[in-house]
């Protein structure tokens, strides 16, 4: 244990307290079923957002063989040991954890580039998770796409799940599937514990297209999936700019997507915040006259 004495200093009221008090650290899986919807972007932004709120947070890449979180977090040249090395006992946890240069509370745990998809053995992952819970308040798990071994392992230990969904048919369907899997195959489900609490995060949202009837709206997706809405992230140029430069988008204060993630993190921590970026920016004369059709 050791270095966790200063963990609690500025955590907001009601938030999970950190390690040491084992079992109180919270495991959050960022998952979606479908690929390319923004899981890694969300993992990076959410973990950074939690760190900015004063919580000691680690973000883990579960996408064995297709490591990318390191790039999105901008620490790709600092990876020495990885998740599989720690599971196999070739390195200890603190050798593999990468401390973020922008924030003291933020750590990255990169995955391995091995092609052996079954390298993530459940017992090994469990051991590492228990060790992480001693050090961190939040453990953010970036799931691979699909419903294979990696995705199931990523969600297995979750206390909370953020279902990243695009307002588009295949993404909504896959989210529904993943919600079903969380309800039946997570550790909480297997042990008959209270279920994983699931949150909907709608990403790549374009309010103008929604108004035109070209894109599923927030209410539509909420109604179909019937899980609580954590946030709506607008389609934004700043997301690509953030990944180009290896900066979690929450660090870009001018970015609408970044601000939307900050709001989502606040809601996750129990704050009430109004949804922003769900209406078109500029309301044309006719639209203002007739109301939103």
């Amino acid at each position: 244990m050791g270095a966790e004495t200063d963990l609690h200093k500025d955590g907001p009221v009601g938030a999970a307290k950190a390690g040491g008090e084992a079992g109180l650290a919270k495991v959050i899986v960022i998952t979606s079923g479908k690929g390319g919807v923004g899981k890694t972007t969300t993992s990076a932004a959410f973990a950074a957002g939690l760190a900015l709120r004063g919580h000691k947070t680690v973000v883990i890449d579960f996408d064995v063989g297709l490591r990318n979180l390191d790039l999105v977090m901008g620490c790709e040249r600092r990876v020495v040991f990885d998740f599989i090395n720690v599971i196999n006992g070739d390195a200890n946890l603190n050798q593999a954890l990468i401390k973020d240069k922008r924030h003291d509370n933020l750590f990255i745990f990169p995955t391995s580039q091995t092609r052996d998809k079954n390298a993530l053995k459940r017992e090994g992952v469990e051991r590492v998770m228990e060790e992480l819970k001693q050090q961190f308040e939040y453990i953010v798990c970036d799931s691979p796409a699909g419903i294979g071994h990696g995705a199931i392992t990523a969600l297995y230990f979750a206390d909370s799940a953020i279902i990243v969904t695009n307002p588009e048919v295949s993404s909504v369907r896959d989210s529904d599937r993943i919600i079903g899997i969380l309800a039946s195959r997570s550790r909480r489900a297997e042990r008959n514990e209270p279920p994983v609490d699931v949150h909907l995060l709608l990403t790549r949202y374009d309010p103008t297209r929604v108004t035109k009837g070209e894109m599923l709206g927030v209410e539509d997706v909420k109604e179909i999936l019937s899980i609580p809405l954590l946030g709506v992230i607008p389609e934004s140029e700043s997301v690509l700019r953030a990944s180009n430069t290896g900066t979690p988008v929450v660090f870009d204060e001018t970015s609408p997507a970044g601000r939307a993630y900050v709001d989502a993190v606040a809601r996750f921590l129990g704050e009430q915040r109004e949804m922003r970026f769900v209406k078109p920016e500029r309301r044309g004369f006719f639209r203002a006259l007739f109301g939103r059709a």
Partner: protein
Amino acid sequence: MGFFRSLFKPRHSSASIAKERLKIVLAHERAGRNAPDFLPLLQKELLTVVGRYIEISEDMIRVTLANSGDTSSLEINIEIEGGKLKADSGKALSAAV
């Protein structure tokens, strides 16, 4: 006309088509997903038991779990071709006991 219609009634927009399609497909998939794993086994065992008394083949028995609202119903459909009873059905029963 077209302009005003699109303004007031975006009902047949592609988004609303997407929503309807999703509702239908997910209703089906959720029902199938919630179907417990034991259904195929149940069907097999029923086939064995019923087969002791009546000549029956695998495709003549259908087991489905249907959900509508709050109620679920387990539906077992057994087709009997001309009701061919097995001559030794009594014997089968005593053998089983």
